[in-house]
C-alpha cells in the first residue's frame, strides 16, 4: 500500500503520467517556437503557440540544484535523509524529482543523472533519477 501523496492527474497531465507508466519521459515541444517545455500545458508558456506535440525525452540531465531533506512531512520522514533535486533536462526544461543515492551528501550541482521509473501504484509511476 503506497501511502505517500500521489499526483492528482488532470487533462493537461494525463499524457505525461501515461508516458511514465509506459516507461517513457514525455515532454512537450512546439515546432514554431522551437522549444521544449515542462510542466504540461496546451500552449507554449509565455508566448502562446498552440502547435504543441508530445515527444519522448532522452531522460538525461544534470543536477541544477538539490537539497538533502533531513526533516520532511509525515509521509516522507522515514526516508530521510533523501535527495530532492531540480534536474536540468538535456532538452532544456527543468523538473523536480528525487535522486537515488546511498550517499546524499556526496551529490554535487552539475552531476549527470538518468531517469528511472518508480512504480507507486497501478495508476501512477513517478519519474526519478539515478546518478549517471
Amino acid at each position, binding site marked *: 500500500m503506497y501511502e*505517500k*501523496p*500521489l*499526483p*492528482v*492527474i*488532470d487533462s493537461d*497531465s494525463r499524457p505525461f503520467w501515461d508516458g511514465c507508466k509506459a516507461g517513457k519521459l514525455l515532454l512537450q515541444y512546439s515546432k514554431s517556437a522551437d522549444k521544449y517545455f*515542462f*510542466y504540461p500545458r496546451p500552449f507554449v508558456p509565455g508566448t502562446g503557440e498552440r502547435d504543441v506535440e508530445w515527444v519522448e525525452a532522452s531522460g538525461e540531465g544534470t543536477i*541544477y*540544484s*538539490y*537539497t*538533502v*531533506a*533531513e*526533516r*520532511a*512531512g*509525515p*509521509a*516522507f520522514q522515514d*526516508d530521510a535523509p*533523501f535527495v*530532492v*533535486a*531540480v534536474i536540468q533536462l538535456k532538452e532544456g526544461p*527543468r*523538473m*523536480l*524529482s*528525487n535522486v537515488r543515492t546511498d550517499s546524499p*551528501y556526496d551529490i554535487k*550541482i*552539475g552531476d549527470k543523472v538518468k531517469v528511472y521509473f518508480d512504480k*507507486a501504484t497501478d495508476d*501512477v509511476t*513517478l519519474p*526519478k533519477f539515478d546518478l549517471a
Partner: protein
Amino acid sequence: MSNKTPVIAGVADVPLVKGKVLNGENVMSIQANAALEALDSAGLTLADVDGLMVTGMWAVPGPGQLMSVTMAEYLGIQPTFHDCTNIGGSTFELFVARAALAIEAGQAETVLILYGSTQKSERSRNLAGRAPVFNMQYETPYGMPTPVGGYAMAMQRHMHEYGSTPETLAEIAVATRKWAKMNDNATSRDDLTIDEVMESPVISSPLRLRDCCLVTDGGGAVVVTTKERVKDLKKKPIYIKGYGECATHWHIAQMPDMANLDVARIAGQRAFEMAGMTHSDIDIVQIYDSFTVTVLLTLEGLGFAKPGEGKDLVANQNTAPGGNFPLNTSGGGLSYAHPGMYGIFLLIEAARQLWGECGERQVAGVKTALCHGTGGTLSSGATCILSTEEG
C-alpha cells in the same frame, strides 16, 4: 482622481508570549485589536474606515474565502474599497501600493490593512507541502520539505555560483537576533552565536534550524489615509514614495534563476524609479526573512549588493546594531515573530523607525525606509519605499 496624497498614519502589532497570542484569542479578534490600536494611534476610529485590505490562511474553506467581506462584517464597516488578494507574505507591500492607488482614485480615504494568524496556538503548521494538484502534482509526490526545501535549493545554487557559505547565513541569523534582543515583543531573545547557528540541526541542506523563521501567532494593522486628513492627527505622515511588484513562478523548479532573485530585482527597480531615489537615499531596510537565504538573495536582487557580493555586505555583523547597514530592526521573522505571512511587520517596523518610536533599537536619523516582501517559494516580491519627507 481625488488629488489627495496617501500616507501611512498608524500601525500596531498584537502582543505575543512565547510566540502565542494572549488569552487564547481568535484570529478575528486579534485583527480587530490591532485595527483599533492602529486607528487610535492615528487619531481615527473604525467609523473613519472606508477601505479594508486583508489576507491570510484561516477559515478556508469557509468565511476565509471571502476574507475582506468576513472581516468587514466582523468590524461592522461597509467598505467602498476592499481587497483580499493573496500573493503570499509579500501581499502587504502590494496592499500599500493598492491602497495608495485607491486613495488617489477616490475609491477610499482611509484604508485599513490587516493580518492575523493563530497558527502556533492551533499547531496547524507542518512540512508536508501543498496538495498534489495542478502544478504541485510535479512537486509534492517527491517529498520536498515545504517551503524550506525550495529555499535550500536556492542557497545551494547560490553557493555553487558565487561561493557564499553557511557562515554567510549565520551572520544574518545572529545580527537579526541582536535586534530582537531590543524588542520586548520579540519571541526569541536569547544569545545566539555564529557557531550555534552552524551547529543547529540540518533541516534541508544547506539550511539549518537557525536559518529558518519562527513559527508563531501574530497580528498587525497598518492605516493608510490622506495627508490632508493627517493634518489634524497625532502622527507625522509617512509618504509612499515608490512601489513595485513582480511574480515569476510558484513551483520552485519553474524559478527562472535560482541564484538570483528576479522578483526583487524587478520590483525594486520599479520602486526606486518611481521614488526617484537610489540606494544611498535609503536609511533603513526591512526585508522578508522567512529564511536567512531569503535575506541574502533579496539584498542582491534589490541591488544593495552586486550578485554574489551579499556575503560581503552581511559579513562581520554589518547588519547588526552598530553596523553600517541596519536591517530587520524588529528582530524579523527569524527572531521576532513569523505568523505564516510576515510582510505586514516589515511595514510596522519601518513606520515605527520613521516615527522614532523604537526606543533602544531606534536607528538615528531615519527619514527613508525600504520594505521588501517575499511570497511563496521566492515566487512573488513587492517593494515599498517610505519617507517622512514629501518632496
